[in-house]
């Protein structure tokens, strides 16, 4: 074991981390060992700055079968079925090479869900870019969407939703967060803790090359001005092999005693192997010489840390290894035996007979944490005076045409939304609906976050993101039962970003507690800044709503002319943090905090109305406010709405409340009765018409109408 006079701080380890490592090892470490540790203890792998804070997120709940810490959160959805879901960032790789960065983000999150024993069933993508007029936005957006389409479509998993925002702060730090949802039977749930002396590690999938060497550390580093420098590390995905991997892994898990399983992600083989051993607290040998290589001359550190895609690590009983290899071979996937669980507590890395490293497993269980020094909470600026009147019609058209509110059809129209026959409701509005299998329960899924609101108040903005995501699944009649989140922020070493980190965690924690939705996991992406400019705090929420009978979700049957249009919940009380305020130039007031009680009532009501079959459609009022929501119903259903509104004030028409929903019902009385019983405000505002237009009457304003063609033209977008 060569001990060098090598300086581990050159790898980014702090002096105290080095001391801790030496103390745990009881000696100086070799260069190889420092290299492994520097990656394992990087922010990306170890959540140094956020781990303690994440403990504030409530993660308990009756339906939680697997909470934070595993590959994905797992929730019970009844009848022996469960759903696994996780969201993760791939921001830095996508900034450097948008197509492959996004593609490998999709592939990576898919393997996380697979590692729980679930069949990947759907993707969602949450994207953030600089304004469309910025020079690189078009290139980045096209590349990212093409990358998601490339991987998702080919691997045979539909992409059923997501969200997309433009904000100047993302100009040089685009965000690509990918979410995967999978289904499994309760009994098929797996974890990643290695156990059982003599059990064998099987490395399944792609050969190891030089892809993404140091990627984990790379993901934790602020983007340099010339990101092109980072190019050789770029990973390339192979969705074809990804598809073979899904089938091979599921078949092996189905037919053989798989003791534990983990995907290879950040820090590659070292990351997966060491984490499995550390979780199980077992000693083990890793046989580097048996790892199939794509290039001949890889150094041991490269084999250990390569982030070549499409690889999984399985732990099997020794008798099962041959059978597993046979399954893999038949499906055209390589599978190599690369290690064994052993007596004792040492992790031994071997190259042939040569011992490259022997360290106690404890060393890998204890990544150190880092203190953060948040700035004091900023003072809220005074609320500016709000406009008291407006031209509703022209403001509506302007909002519909704005990049953050226009149609996303040109994005999701490039994604296969149906493959797998689980998609009951496709993307278009609010949440998509999936069934686990024919006749089985299912879920509604959505991602949400509003950069404008979060930049005005990270804490309120984060809480509102939870509320919006909950409303979106509830608009399908689903009960929100769990959420996964991805926290995208700037450098935690700067007090302002540290403050934002604390605030977004507190905001999510508050909303999750108030709405009783457990947080089943997530991902943290820090250092999203360049040239000293940090992104708007971006806590993306991925929400899971439960539907016992997904084929009867709200919206599946759809509205017809003559049905009643109702408003459920509380109209907006201000314009703070709204798209309209931005358009009218009356920003900086922070958005109104969530009205939890009203929202709880609304969520419960929507579930009940779905059970009763009382609604033909529901659409929550969110970005753009009430008029935009009504216009979206017209463009989505291609039917008309004729409404009489109570007020003509800008805040009523364009404010963005936290607990309001438009609903369409064959019978308004039935809805009113249930709403009354639950204490939810309800107001009938009009009816569905044959004439495809939005026709609006308001007190004090002349009547106006906009045709479907006009609305569709305004919101067409031309994003791609």
């Amino acid at each position, binding site marked *: 074991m060569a001990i060098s006079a090598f300086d581990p701080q050159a790898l980014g380890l702090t002096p105290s981390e080095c001391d801790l490592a030496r103390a745990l090892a009881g000696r100086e470490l070799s260069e190889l060992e420092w290299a492994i540790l520097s990656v394992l203890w990087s922010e990306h792998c170890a959540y140094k700055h956020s781990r303690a804070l994440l403990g504030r997120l409530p993660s308990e709940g009756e339906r939680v079968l697997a909470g934070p810490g595993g590959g994905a959160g797992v929730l019970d959805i009844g009848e022996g079925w469960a759903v696994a879901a996780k969201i993760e960032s791939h921001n830095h790789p996508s900034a450097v090479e948008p197509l492959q960065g996004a593609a490998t983000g999709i592939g990576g999150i898919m393997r996380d869900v697979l590692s729980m024993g679930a069949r990947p069933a759907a993707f969602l993508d949450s994207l953030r870019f600089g304004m469309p007029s910025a020079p690189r936005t078009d290139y980045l957006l096209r590349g990212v969407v093409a990358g998601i389409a490339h991987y998702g479509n080919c691997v045979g998993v539909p992409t059923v939703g997501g969200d997309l925002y433009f904000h100047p702060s993302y100009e040089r730090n685009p965000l690509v967060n990918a979410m995967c949802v999978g289904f499994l039977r309760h009994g098929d749930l797996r974890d990643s803790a290695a156990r059982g002396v003599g059990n064998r590690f099987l490395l399944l999938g792609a050969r190891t090359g030089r892809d993404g060497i140091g990627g984990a550390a790379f993901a934790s580093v602020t983007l340099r001005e010339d990101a092109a420098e980072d190019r050789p590390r*770029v990973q390339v995905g192979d969705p074809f092999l990804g598809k073979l991997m899904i089938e091979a892994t599921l078949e092996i898990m189905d037919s053989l005693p798989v003791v534990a399983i983990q995907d290879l992600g950040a820090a590659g083989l070292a990351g997966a192997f060491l984490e499995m051993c550390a979780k199980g607290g077992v000693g083990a040998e890793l046989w580097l010489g048996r790892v199939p290589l794509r290039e001949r001359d890889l150094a041991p550190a490269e084999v250990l840390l390569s982030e070549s895609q499409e690889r999984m690590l399985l732990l099997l009983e020794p008798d099962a290894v041959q059978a597993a290899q046979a399954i893999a071979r038949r499906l055209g996937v390589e599978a190599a035996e690369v290690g064994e669980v052993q007596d004792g507590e040492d992790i031994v890395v071997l190259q042939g007979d040569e011992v490259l490293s022997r360290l106690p497993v404890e060393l890998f269980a204890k990544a150190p944490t880092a203190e953060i020094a948040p700035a004091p909470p900023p003072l809220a600026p005074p609320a500016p005076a709000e406009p008291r009147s407006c031209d509703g019609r022209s403001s509506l058209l302007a909002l519909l045409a704005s990049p953050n509110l226009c149609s996303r059809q040109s994005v999701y129209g490039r994604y296969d939304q149906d493959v797998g026959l689980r998609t009951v409701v496709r993307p278009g509005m609010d949440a998509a609906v999936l069934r686990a299998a024919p006749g089985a329960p299912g879920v509604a899924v959505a991602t949400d976050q509003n950069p404008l609101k979060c930049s005005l108040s990270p804490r309120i903005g984060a809480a509102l993101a939870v509320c919006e995501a909950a409303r979106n699944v509830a608009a399908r009649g689903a009960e929100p039962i769990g959420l996964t989140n991805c926290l995208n922020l700037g450098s935690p070493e700067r007090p302002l970003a540290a403050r934002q980190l604390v605030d977004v965690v507190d905001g999510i924690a508050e909303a999750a507690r108030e709405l009783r939705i457990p947080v089943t996991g997530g991902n943290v992406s820090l250092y999203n800044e360049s040239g000293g400019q940090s992104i708007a705090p971006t806590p993306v929420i991925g929400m899971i709503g439960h539907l016992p009978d997904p084929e009867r979700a709200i919206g599946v049957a759809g509205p017809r002319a003559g049905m009643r249009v109702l408003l459920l919940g509380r109209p907006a009380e201000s314009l703070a943090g709204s798209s309209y305020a931005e358009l009218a130039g009356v920003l900086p007031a922070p958005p109104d905090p969530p009205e939890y009680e009203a929202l709880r009532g609304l969520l419960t009501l929507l579930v009940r109305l779905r059970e009763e079959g009382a609604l033909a459609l529901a659409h929550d009022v969110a970005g753009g406010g009430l008029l935009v929501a009504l216009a979206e119903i017209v463009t989505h259903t291609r039917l008309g709405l004729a409404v009489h509104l109570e007020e003509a004030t800008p805040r009523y028409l364009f404010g963005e409340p936290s607990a309001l929903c438009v609903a369409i019902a064959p019978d308004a009385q039935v809805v009113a009765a249930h709403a009354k019983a639950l204490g939810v405000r309800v107001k009938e505002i009009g009816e569905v018409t044959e004439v495809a237009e939005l026709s609006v009457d308001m007190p004090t304003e002349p009547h106006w109408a906009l045709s479907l063609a006009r609305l569709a033209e305004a919101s067409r977008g031309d994003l791609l």
Partner: protein
Amino acid sequence: MPDYRVELRVHLRPGVLDPAGEAVGASLGHLGFAVERVEVGKLLTVDLTADGPEAAEAAVQRMAKELLVNPVLEEYVLEVRPR
């Protein structure tokens, strides 16, 4: 101005994964051909007019840089011919 045809042969950078090449190589194997390696690259042909061959080459170099080639994954050679 004279007419030129510029051919841009775009290869993957060494070490970059080439799943298409691997799949094609494997299929050739099944068809009974013995090959060591196949690479699937791109061939871009640009017809343009320019003051001379150097000017044509310079123009296409700029196009390569700005659009035609993805320097993260690809490298290229370029050949100018009169048309």
